[in-house]
């Protein structure tokens, strides 16, 4: 299967990449390519230029700072999943990275590629929102809750590149994913993070875009235990219904996954 024709470009800096983008007719950035290339093969996307940012060395790093974990947007999932720093600092994040796709996909796919694509069932958006992350782009900083704006859409402007993500280090956190039995995409995935005086719960794979489950956060604030979610009525309003699961079933699974995550944290 062949993609439509395109012109391949490989800049060595973020600055150069943005300049190439600005001079292109209808360019896309290529990071790990694990969603973009399949989409191009299906002719769902046919850019005129492909700007390969996967070899920009400055985009790939993991660094600990006081209270935060910084991960370069070009860092591949396999690196995050196996990272000693990530395991020490936010183990749930390493677990999440190890649940994305399959091993071959994790060897190529990147953090930046995942969040810029913002697939409604992608795993990383749940981690960014629950961990109150800040995305640094080639132009500015954007809080995670403002970054993910809708199905396959983000706050990134044309040509703007996600450069790094700053994750706030929680007191404890866990990610529980109910994978679609065929595709293994989250259906849903729930990330629970506890900070001093604050509990954040983010849900992916249940609606058009990642969201915070406020009713679950409120219940957990009263008592942090799986049992406190028993009486919570997660609403199917606004959730996705498809051949795999009805909105009602997804609403139910959100609660069950949240309970699994809380159990894992205790």
């Amino acid at each position, binding site marked *: *299967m*062949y*993609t*439509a*024709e*395109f*012109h*391949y470009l*490989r800049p060595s800096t973020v600055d150069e990449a943005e300049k190439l983008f600005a001079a292109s007719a209808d360019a896309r950035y*290529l990071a790990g*390519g*694990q969603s973009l*290339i*399949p989409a191009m*093969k*299906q002719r769902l996307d046919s850019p005129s230029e*492909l700007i*390969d940012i*996967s070899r920009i060395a400055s985009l790939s790093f993991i660094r600990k700072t006081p209270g935060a974990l910084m991960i370069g947007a070009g860092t591949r999932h*396999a690196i995050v999943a196996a990272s000693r720093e990530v395991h020490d600092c936010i183990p749930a994040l390493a677990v999440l990275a190890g649940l994305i*796709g*399959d*091993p*071959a*996909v994790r*060897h*190529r796919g990147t953090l930046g590629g995942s969040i810029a694509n913002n697939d409604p069932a992608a795993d990383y958006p749940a981690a960014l929102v629950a961990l109150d992350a800040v995305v640094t782009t080639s132009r500015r900083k954007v809080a995670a809750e403002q970054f993910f704006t809708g199905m396959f859409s983000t706050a990134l402007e044309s040509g703007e590149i996600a450069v790094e993500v700053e994750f706030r280090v929680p007191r404890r956190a866990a990610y529980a994913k109910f994978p679609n039995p065929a595709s*293994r995409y989250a259906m849903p995935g729930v990330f629970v993070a506890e900070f001093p005086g604050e509990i954040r719960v983010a849900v992916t794979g249940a609606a058009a875009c990642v969201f915070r489950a406020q009713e679950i956060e409120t219940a957990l604030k009263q008592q942090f235990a799986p049992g406190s979610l028993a009486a919570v009525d997660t609403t199917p309003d606004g959730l996705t219904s498809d051949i795999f699961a009805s909105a009602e079933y997804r609403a139910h699974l959100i609660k069950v996954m949240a309970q699994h995550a809380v159990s894992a944290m205790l």
Partner: protein
Amino acid sequence: MALISLEVNGMPVRAEVEDRTLLVHFLREHLRLTGTHVGCDTSQCGACVVHVNGEAVKSCTMFAVQADGESILTIEGLSQDGKLHPVQAAFQEHHALQCGFCTPGMIMTAVDILARHPHADEATIRSELEGNFCRCTGYLNIIKAIRAAAEAA
């Protein structure tokens, strides 16, 4: 068109490719290394798995130009001096194939699994095989073969 130079199975290769040529088509059609298979062409089945700089990747989900300067290992490069790689030998010994179509990808993935988990147990092998589909064997003998290769190492 792009001029690329890379290493394939230890040999230097220089070639001119269309920008949109997928790595798997470059290997199969330009280099005639047809051991790497195209099963699904939708990045799911893993029949096309090769190693890029020692890591298993799906060669149908990567362009040949992206392999410029990199080192590629395919199923043809696995045996040394006419002797099967221990994972290949284990697949033969444990009858880990029926039609054989998925086998090159299974073996390249298995070698990658054992490089990262030298003493992989059954649960690890099962979860690590998530990106490789076999439609004949029910996976049991594949897992048995990989376990045997892990124990022999």
